[in-house]
C-alpha cells in the first residue's frame, strides 16, 4: 500500500536544539559531533553521550543512509512505517519511511532524506527509498 498523509505532530524545539530545527526549516539535517572524541551522535545534544565533553558541534549530514529496521503500523487509520535509518555518517536515527509502497520497504534498503511538514511546527527529517 502507498504511504498516505499522516498528520505529524510538531516537535517542540528546546533552547539546546534550536539550531537543529532552524536547519530543518532550511531542508538540512544536522547531527551532533564531538570535538573532543571525534564521534558523531544522534539525537544531538549539548554534551557528548560518548565521552561526556561539552565541546559538541553541529555537522550537516549528506542525507543518505540505510534502513536498519522498520515496522509498518497497520492497526491505525493511516498506516505508516516507523523506522531506524543508519546514516552514512555512522549514527542510527528514528524516523519514518515515506513516499513509497509500505510493503516494499526492506532492511538494508538505501534511502535518502526528505523533510515533511508538521502541524504548526518545523519540518521533520524522514526518508524515502533511493531512486524514488
Amino acid at each position: 500500500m502507498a504511504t498516505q498523509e499522516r498528520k505529524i505532530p510538531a516537535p517542540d524545539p528546546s533552547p539546546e536544539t534550536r539550531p537543529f530545527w532552524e536547519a530543518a526549516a532550511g531542508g538540512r539535517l544536522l547531527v551532533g559531533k564531538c570535538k573532543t572524541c571525534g564521534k558523531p551522535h544522534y539525537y544531538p545534544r549539548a554534551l557528548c553521550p560518548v565521552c561526556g565533553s561539552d565541546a559538541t558541534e553541529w555537522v550537516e549530514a549528506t542525507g543518505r543512509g540505510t534502513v536498519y529496521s522498520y515496522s509498518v503500523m497497520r492497526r491505525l487509520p493511516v498506516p505508516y512505517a516507523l523506522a531506524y535509518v543508519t546514516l552514512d555518517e555512522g549514527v542510527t536515527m528514528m524516523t519514518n519511511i515515506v513516499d513509497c509502497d509500505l510493503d516494499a520497504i526492506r532492511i538494508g534498503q538505501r534511502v535518502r532524506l526528505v523533510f515533511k511538514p508538521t502541524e504548526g511546527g518545523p519540518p521533520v527529517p524522514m526518508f524515502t527509498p533511493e531512486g524514488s
Partner: protein
Amino acid sequence: MTIKGKAYIAGVFEHPTRKADDKSLAQLHAESARGALADAGLSREDVDGYFCAGDAPGLGGLSMADYMGLKLRHIDTTETGGSSYCIHVSHAAQAIAAGKCNVALITLAGRPRAEGMATGTAPRNYGTAPDVAFEFPYGPTVVNQYAMAAMRHMHQYGTTSAQLAWIKVAASHHAQHNPHALLREVVTVDDVVNSPMISDPLHRLDCCVITDGGGAIVVTKPEIAKSLRRPRVKLLGAGEAVKHQMGGQVDLTYTGATWSGPAAFAEAGLTPADVRYVSIYDSFTVTVLITLEDLGFCAKGQGGKFVSDGNLISGTGKLPFNTDGGGLCNNHPANRGGLTKVVEAVRQLRGEAHPKVQVKDCGVALAHGTGGSLGTRHGSATLIMERE
C-alpha cells in the same frame, strides 16, 4: 558485599481482578499490599520499607504511604517501567542487608482497561524528555517499537513468526489452568500467525493482554523469614542494567538482560543449567525470545529454535516458563508485568503453582523484567531465587 542469602521473599499476592471499574488506583495498591502481608503472615505494622514505581498515583511513594498509613524508615521509588518491581526486590535485599529495613513492601496497580487506555497503539508523549522532539513526530508506540526489534532479529538471524508464535502457544497451555487468566483458550501456531497484524511482524496474539489489577511482594530478613510458617524463598542473586541508544549506535538484537543476567548468575554462583523454572517478561513474544538468548539459555540468534516445538511448556518442554500464563495470556496489570513474574516464580518454588503446571523439584527459579522500550531505552532486572 553481596545480597546472596540476605533476604527472603516472604509474601506474594496477585490481585484477582482483570477489570477494576469499581476500584480506585490507590485502593488496588492497598488491597494488593493486604494480600501479600496476609500471605506472609505479617502485618502492616511490621512494614518499615516501601517500594513503588510510576504506576503509583500523585506523589508516588508519598501518596501511597499516606493512603496506607505506613511508618517507614526506608523508601525507594525506582522507576524502570515494568521491570521496576524486580529491581525493587533487589533494592529491598540491599536495604535489608545494610540494616536499613526489616520488612519491605512492594506494590503495583493500574486500571488501563477501566480507563480505556490505548496501550499499544497510541504514541506516548514523554513531555520534556530530550528525545521527544526527535522521536514523537514519527509515531512510536509500544508495539511498533518492539516490532522493529523483531524485524531486525528476523533479518539478522532468520527468526520466523512461527517460532515467535510458539511462545504464545506455550503461555496459553499454562493459562488454561488459571481461573483468573484473561485468555484461557489454548492456541496453536496457526492461530497466532493468522491473528490480525498489528505492526509488522507482530500479530495481535504476539502481544500481551491489557489488564487492570496489580500485586504486591513482601521481602524480609532471614530471622523474620525463619519465624514464619511459609515455605522459604531465598534470594541468591540480582542484576540490573539500563540499555539505551548509546548516542546513536542502535542494536535492537539484544537487551539489557545481556548484563543483568550474568550479574545475577555470578552473584548466585549458578548457571542457566541450574534453573528449573523461568518467569520471563512477556510484553510481546519477541521480548521473551531475545531475553532467553541474552540470559544464556541458548546462543544469540538461536532463540527461535529454542522456543519452538513446545520447549517452554511445563511437563513436556525443557524450560517451563510463565506457568500462570504470563502477560501473554494471564495478566499484565497496569501495562507493567514485572511483579507478576516474581509472584509465579515464588509460587513455583513453594510448590504452590497449579498442579498441572507445577515443576517437579523446583529448587531454583529465575524472574526477569524488561521495562520501557526495547526500541529506545529500557531497564532490565534479573532475580535468581531458591527454595530453602
